[in-house]
């Protein structure tokens, strides 16, 4: 019996003590892994939002500002029912510095018999769109035909399924990858389909008419500014040229989200650090008590020829095994929590929330387990080192 079998027996035959140490370490691992996944998911969500918006400026009808928060529009998926003349997109292209202008039309389905699910429908012009089309292209190889729809990852409709929107049958041809934003609960279609849906909605009493009475309407225009042009200058020029239209810089929207995210990140990080400091102190005390309780056992081992190094290795090995067990248990529990309740976390934070890739998650899990092992070993090392310096004759007397 060298050190490892002796350590294993010590752990197995003192189940209460072992369980307490494992539990304590599991608590640490849970805090670190859970906290880190939440922070990383928020950052990934923000990056996804930035990439997905893709536009420098968004044009909306002036009335829209009083109807909807643009931030919520993209984070929560609450697209508003506001419309303007479809010609705005072409007029915007005439403004110096505007490289691309992609119109979008919004329509909310009803939670009624005419619609199979309550969703936001977004009509895009695939030829002009540069915001959603790149994502659609990753999921859909061909073109989006009339009455075809592409659904966000959280829309409960499978590919090939028919969904009814205002009694119109639409075929799901693709499902998008997650973005962690309200875009995940939207349905995308081309402008022809949108015109049909708008007409059907009108028939159901959901009006989209604008003051001019023109049937060709859009809700927003996404603007890409040419390289070398100042976005603020283009923004001002757009506002000057287009009447009854508000130009919103997306950067200001992202900055607002980013500020909220930074605040949440700071809070979660601070809480994680505080939990770690407290738990490390508790672990230190726990190992001090454990080692003190084992004074006689260590003295007996010294008496029969165990060196200080052997005892140190034994204490480190046992605490490392507790750290390993606790690290795995805590990480596992945290994983169950953050992955099972991701929708709840997302809605309560009100921020873009998207899990990082599996590689990052695995790396984070491995790091958390290693950290748990290291902290447990460090906590026990202090106590074991102090005890191993006591001479066995003295320790045996003190351990009586």
């Amino acid at each position, binding site marked *: *019996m*060298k050190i490892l*079998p*002796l350590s294993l*027996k*010590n752990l197995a*035959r*003192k189940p209460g003590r072992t369980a307490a140490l494992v539990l304590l370490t599991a608590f640490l691992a849970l805090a670190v892994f859970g906290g880190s996944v939440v922070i990383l998911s928020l950052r990934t969500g923000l990056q996804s939002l930035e990439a997905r918006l893709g536009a420098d400026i968004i044009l909306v009808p002036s009335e829209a500002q009083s109807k909807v928060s643009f931030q919520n529009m993209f984070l929560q998926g609450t697209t508003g029912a506001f419309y303007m003349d479809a010609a705005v997109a072409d007029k915007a292209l005439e403004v110096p510095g505007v490289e691309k202008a992609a119109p979008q039309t919004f329509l909310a389905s009803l939670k009624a018999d005419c619609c199979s699910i309550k969703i936001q429908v977004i009509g895009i012009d695939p030829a002009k769109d540069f915001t959603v089309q790149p994502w659609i292209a990753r999921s859909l190889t061909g073109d989006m035909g009339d009455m075809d729809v592409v659904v966000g990852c959280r829309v409960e409709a499978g590919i090939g399924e028919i969904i009814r929107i205002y009694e119109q049958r639409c075929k799901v041809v693709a499902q998008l990858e997650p973005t962690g934003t309200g875009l995940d609960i939207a349905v995308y279609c081309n402008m022809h389909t949108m015109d049909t849906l708008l007409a059907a909605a009108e028939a159901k009493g959901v009006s989209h008419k604008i003051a001019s009475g023109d049937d060709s309407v859009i809700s927003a225009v996404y603007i890409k500014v040419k390289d070398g042009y100042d976005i603020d200058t283009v923004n001002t020029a757009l506002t000057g040229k287009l009447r009854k239209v508000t130009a919103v810089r997306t950067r200001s929207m992202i900055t607002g989200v980013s500020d909220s995210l930074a605040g949440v990140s700071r809070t979660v990080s601070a809480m994680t650090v505080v939990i770690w400091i407290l738990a490390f102190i508790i672990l230190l005390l726990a190992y001090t008590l454990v080692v003190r309780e084992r004074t*006689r*056992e260590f003295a*007996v*081992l*010294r*008496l*029969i*020829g*165990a*060196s*200080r*190094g*052997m005892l140190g290795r034994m204490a480190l090995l046992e605490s490392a095994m507790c750290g390993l067990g606790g690290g795995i248990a805590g990480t596992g529990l945290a994983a169950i929590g953050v992955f099972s309740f991701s929708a709840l976390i997302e809605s309560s934070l009100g921020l873009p929330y998207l899990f990082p890739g599996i590689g990052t998650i695995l790396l984070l899990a491995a790091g958390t387990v290693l950290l748990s092992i290291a902290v447990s070993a460090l906590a026990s090392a202090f106590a074991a080192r102090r005890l191993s310096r006591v*001479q*066995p*004759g*003295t320790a*045996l*007397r003190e*351990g*009586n």
Partner: protein
Amino acid sequence: MLLRADNISKTFFRKTGSANYFYAVSPLSLEIHPETVTVLMGRSGSGKTTLLNMLSGILQPTEGSVWLGDTDLYRLKDAALSRLRNERIGVVPQARSAVDTLTVMENILLPERLYGRKAPAEKARRWMEMFEIGQLENAFPKELSGGELRRMAIIRALVQEPEVLFADEPTGDLDDENTERVLSALASYAHEEKKGVMIVTHENDAVKYADRIFKMEGGELF
């Protein structure tokens, strides 16, 4: 001569009168010979256990040196001294000395297994039968009485086959029958295996097995 103590002493911190320390063991020299049972007698607190601990390599003397053959114990590094204790010195401490998470048999074979040597389980069983704890092979220390634990510690030291064996109050928790059995076994070990045995006791039972008797009083050896 097997083991020799040269002018060793031990002081401990204690505020007594004008001094900050006191002599638990006053400077003394002592030899332990092979095939000899040395009995050290004295009242509680006379310094017997402190002397035994210094001789057995588990308590550094304040002054002096302890030699096992031509090795000065306390000049060795900890790893070397620990290994030497494991291979050449056996100790039966006065205190309870079992590892609670190991069975009786695992406790007895622990010195051998600590350094990966082949454990003499059969020999251990014979000693256990002789000391009437054969049925406790798989029991855990907390299930044993004080006397059974004492016998387990003695068997552990005997199975180790050390050159010199120190036993501190080995019959403390034993009845008369087991006292005779243990003392007889220790004497046989010294005489038949040609080893050195030192028994520290405050009782007179060991006297008849002694080849040499010392007495301690107030840290002085007589």
